[in-house]
């Protein structure tokens, strides 16, 4: 239901997932995505950058299997045809925690749904909490935490399954800037350490340049890819990168591409 896998033998080291000419039309006749093709390669940190309504979240939801393409194909090269368990995690814009459950229980959830008891899952849950620096808050309830801490719990929950692909839908958009910078740094550190593949949806040029090694710029009406930029600044990136020329150059490039995309759109309408 979620994908049509192609038989592939040579590409296993290449893309984790590919979209081939994916189009999504909603029942109210909105064309959210038109003819989008994109390959996410193993170990990449890809940002989908664009104005609201450009279909970046729709694309992410299609990859997650929360939405199905109206036309086109989604291909998982590393998997057998028909396999439905894609080993992915999703971080929403809101922390999306269960308010009635402790931090531990919230992070345990993905494992619990796969049938792992709290006792058996304890080491992995605690490990995920340590990754985000919240090992001391396992028995707290979400309402006792700040916005940034809740988002950390949300990230820990996404990491507890050790996913092959981490999908993040504007995860830090609702946080204050100081907290957002700190979580940016933590996310980069974890990514370098564990080498997952990340697809990160954002509407912030600065955030996308700081985090990713590839930026896919999208335009709206209809949602489509207009540019695919490589950010070849080396990792690890830290506060000095934020103030470097390299950073501002890349920001300008991305910003120009985004402006061009939105200019086209203004001309079309």
């Amino acid at each position, binding site marked *: 239901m979620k994908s049509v896998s192609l038989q592939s033998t040579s590409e296993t080291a290449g893309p984790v997932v590919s979209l081939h000419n994916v189009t999504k039309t909603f029942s109210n006749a909105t064309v959210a995505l038109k003819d989008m093709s994109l390959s996410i390669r193993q170990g990449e940190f890809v940002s989908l950058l664009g104005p609201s309504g450009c279909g970046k979240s729709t694309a992410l939801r299609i990859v997650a299997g929360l939405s199905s393409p109206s036309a086109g194909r989604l291909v998982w090269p590393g998997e057998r045809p028909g396999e439905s368990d894609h080993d992915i*995690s999703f971080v929403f814009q809101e922390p999306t925690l269960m308010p*009635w459950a402790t931090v531990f229980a919230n992070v345990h959830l993905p494992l619990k749904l796969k049938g792992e008891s709290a006792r058996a899952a304890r080491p992995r849950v605690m490990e995920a909490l340590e990754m985000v620096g919240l090992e001391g808050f396992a028995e707290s309830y979400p309402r006792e935490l700040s916005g940034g801490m809740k988002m950390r719990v949300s990230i820990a929950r996404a990491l507890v399954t050790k996913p092959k692909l981490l999908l993040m839908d504007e995860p830090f958009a609702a946080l204050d800037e100081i907290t957002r910078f700190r979580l940016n740094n933590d996310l980069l550190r974890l990514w370098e350490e564990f080498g997952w593949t990340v697809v990160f949806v954002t509407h912030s040029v600065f955030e996308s340049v700081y985090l990713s090694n590839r930026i896919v710029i999208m335009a709206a009406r209809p949602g489509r890819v207009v540019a695919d930029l490589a950010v070849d600044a080396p990792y690890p990136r830290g506060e000095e990168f934020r103030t470097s020329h390299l950073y501002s150059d890349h920001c300008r490039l991305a910003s120009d591409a985004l402006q061009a995309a939105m200019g086209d759109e203004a001309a079309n309408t």
Partner: protein
Amino acid sequence: MTAETEPARLAAAALPPLDAVEAAKLRRAKIDRVARWALPAAVMIATIAGWQWYVDAYQVPHYILPGPDRVAEALVRDWPMLWPALLVTLQITLGALVIATIGGVGLAVLFAQSKWVEMSFFPYAVILQVTPVIVIAPLIFIYVPSKIVGLLICAWIVAFFPILSNTTMGLNSADHNLRNLFQLYGASRWQTLWHLRLPSALPYFLGGLKIAGGLSLIGAIVAEFVAGTGGLGSGLAFKILEASYRLNIPRMFAAIVLISLTGIVIFASLSILSHLMLRRWHESAIKRDG
């Protein structure tokens, strides 16, 4: 937890000077704490005293309006007769509440499984709710041979609707992103119900339960009035009917007092239950500053 209480404790220990507004707020909070109990108690005492004074001053005959002293006297004197009647009424009330809870939640879960089922049957739940129980009760007592069962059915009809409608609403109000998350991790329908939808519905259900507690008492009393005659174990409503035939007004008052107290106790117990179940996480049970 500690993060929240720690600054409060430090502030209390150091006692920095308060500005006028904060000091007034503190003073008002202190007065409020006492007033919450003292005011209703004072009004209650004044009402009873006024009632006693009126009855004495105007020499109202006790078969029209007995004073509180006579009501208290009746309560003590008739206790051997009122207590078993109270137990019967209580039995029906609690029995109906239990069945209403099981039935209300059960139906709500059923409705939540399928929109079609909900669309088909919810109107009937509304019809049962809006038709006054007092007009259905005589039919029920004709169709159902057992008086106890008839009483339970009547009380259930009155009490189950708030539980059904609140729980249905609660089950449908689970956070949308959390639903997506459950879907993403391949949760079964049962897992989603048990780990997501039922906990989301809990505050709604408890709100419905508080209403249903009072309604099941009302349903039990109304049904007893309709069922009439004593026989095996008659409840407080029948004692009121019987006392009215004999113009034993103090006993009527005594029975009414018992019914009111029962209602208050039921409401208070359900409020405590609700608080205990929600105090760790739900907004309604959390105290805030400012």
